[in-house]
């Protein structure tokens, strides 16, 4: 293990807006040093899909396996104690990163599972209510005629689970529309969210459009009508300072792998009272209090939602990621990305035949930028960029209805993070130009 790289680069303490030392940061990411496609340097512009991992995260995970791997929350031996401490310390660090208490953060497999956990609370409570109404909190019991409100810019992970809940309960799915600039049509808010509404689940920052939504106002309206408010924070929490307790939500979902952490772990923060009222999702070992042959009682949250052997190493890795980001300063991360996003928007806007899908102004928007090139399918654009070593995402970005809203089958999306600089954007712009020239469009 090298001594040099185990502490994240400190933010500069000079006055004025703090900036990230991108060159220094890049040295922490071994993968950014490799080449692709005929020795081209890798230009990674796909962090909205998954971020790269600094050596601090890789080492934290490896060190856990090297030094104290054991089953957590059981066993009388020293390793079990150390592993349990590592797991719960990680929970505290990750909770602290989003301004939460450790007791209110549930570990899941990924953010999709976090959102499913929330959705299943409703369908499971509704199923139980049919024959044992006293065992469930009525806030989670849905009836035909109840409504669930989402937006037209949800990732499939915050859309399909609610379609399933509707199919099981007879509730109706409604959505807040998206305007031509990629903003929510919020003038409909008070009519869409009405006395029938029991759940409001919205994305904080769109993974396809980049739009940052005013979730506080939407959650306020949800609570006015007594609905449970849920926020998908996958694209926002890695990129800006966020205190989940101040969003006004009851539940907030996000993942580790988009915030420099490993794959295989997601988080669900909940107001403790709400988590306590939710029925379990996955059941089995670790989540119980007592078990008899004919019935069981369950542990308190968060353990109630963590059945089976948990993802300890991933939690430890994600905690290291949170510490890395905290050392940089999330306000500095946000400022860096805001500057890069402004640069990318300007360069794309200047290009002939390029149409940005999503907000063109750099206000209330994040660093995921989707665009289409006239006469060129995104797959072909992506292929040309790949040939130059540029990794972007092409397709519908698990937001197919959003693509349909804009009348496009797919988009090309570039997305930046702490290790990108304007030079990366320049390589991408050159690649788009080359594709246009090659196809004669």
């Amino acid at each position: 293990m090298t001594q040099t790289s185990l502490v994240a680069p400190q933010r500069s303490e000079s006055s004025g807006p703090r900036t990230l030392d991108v060159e220094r940061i890049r040295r922490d990411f071994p993968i950014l040093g490799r080449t692709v496609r005929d020795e081209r340097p890798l230009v990674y512009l796909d962090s909205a899909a998954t971020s790269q991992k600094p050596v601090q995260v890789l080492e934290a995970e490896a060190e856990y396996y090297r030094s104290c791997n054991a089953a957590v929350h059981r066993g009388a031996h020293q390793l079990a104690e150390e592993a349990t401490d590592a797991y719960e310390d990680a929970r505290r660090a990750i909770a602290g990163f989003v301004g939460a208490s450790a007791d209110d953060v549930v570990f899941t497999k990924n953010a999709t599972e976090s959102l499913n956990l929330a959705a299943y609370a409703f369908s499971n409570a509704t199923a139980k209510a049919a024959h044992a109404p006293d065992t469930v909190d009525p806030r989670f019991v849905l009836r035909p005629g109840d409504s669930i409100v989402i937006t037209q810019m949800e990732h499939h992970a915050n859309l399909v689970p609610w379609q399933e809940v509707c199919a099981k309960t007879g509730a109706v799915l409604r959505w807040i529309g998206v305007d031509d600039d990629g903003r929510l049509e919020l003038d409909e808010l008070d009519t869409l969210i009405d006395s029938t509404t029991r759940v409001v689940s919205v994305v904080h920052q769109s993974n396809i459009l980049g739009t940052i939504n005013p979730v506080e106002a939407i959650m306020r309206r949800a609570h006015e009508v007594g609905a449970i408010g849920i926020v998908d924070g996958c694209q926002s929490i890695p990129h800006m300072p966020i205190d989940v307790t101040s969003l006004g939500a009851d539940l907030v979902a996000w993942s580790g792998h988009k915030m420099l952490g490993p794959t295989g772990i997601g988080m669900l923060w909940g107001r403790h009272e709400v988590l306590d009222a939710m029925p379990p999702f996955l059941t089995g070992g670790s989540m119980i209090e007592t078990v008899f042959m004919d019935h069981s009682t369950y542990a308190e949250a968060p353990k109630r939602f963590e059945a089976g052997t948990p993802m300890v190493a991933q939690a430890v890795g994600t905690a290291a990621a949170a510490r890395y980001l905290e050392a940089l300063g999330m306000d500095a991360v946000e400022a860096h990305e805001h500057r890069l996003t402004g640069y990318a928007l300007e360069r794309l806007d200047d290009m002939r035949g390029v149409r940005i899908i999503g907000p063109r102004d750099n206000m209330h928007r994040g660093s995921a930028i989707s665009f289409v090139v006239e006469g060129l399918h995104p797959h072909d654009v992506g292929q040309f960029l790949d040939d130059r070593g540029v990794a972007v995402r092409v397709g519908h970005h698990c937001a197919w209805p959003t693509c349909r809203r804009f009348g496009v089958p797919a988009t090309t999306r570039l997305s930046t993070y702490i290790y990108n600089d304007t030079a990366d954007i320049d390589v991408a712009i050159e690649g788009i130009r080359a594709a246009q020239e090659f196809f004669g469009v």
Partner: protein
Amino acid sequence: MNVESMYQEIILDHYKNPRGRGAISDPAGESHQVNPTCGDEVTVQVTTDDSGHLHVGYEGQGCSISQASASVMAEMVEGLDPTEADAIRAAFLDLMHSKGAAEPDEDVLGDGIAFAGVAKYPARIKCALLPWMALQDAEAKAGITVTDEGADRR
């Protein structure tokens, strides 16, 4: 291999000047196939005439590879005996699964040989195969059968 060599002139030509595009009258079978990862879509219609020969039409939207592949397919199988068409389909499948190692036979594949380079890009193989999958499915729906000779090549 660079990207320009994947996009052979033949592919670009079929992409820009598609052959056989459009619906046919009275299709006996139709199949709509999508690539759920990228949204490419193609709908293939088939029928057979009194002498049992295939007639094919298609519509679609998507990348150059998927749309050019549809055009090549429509041009190649139009008017063929279904068993002959199936042999071409099987040869094209083999080519796409060759990881770029196969020497394509122009006598069998015609313009289809231009897709040899595509086989080196796993993300694009599905694009190239999409219309051929639709053809197979449309034929099945139309009750068009092939003899063992064609089936053996699968």
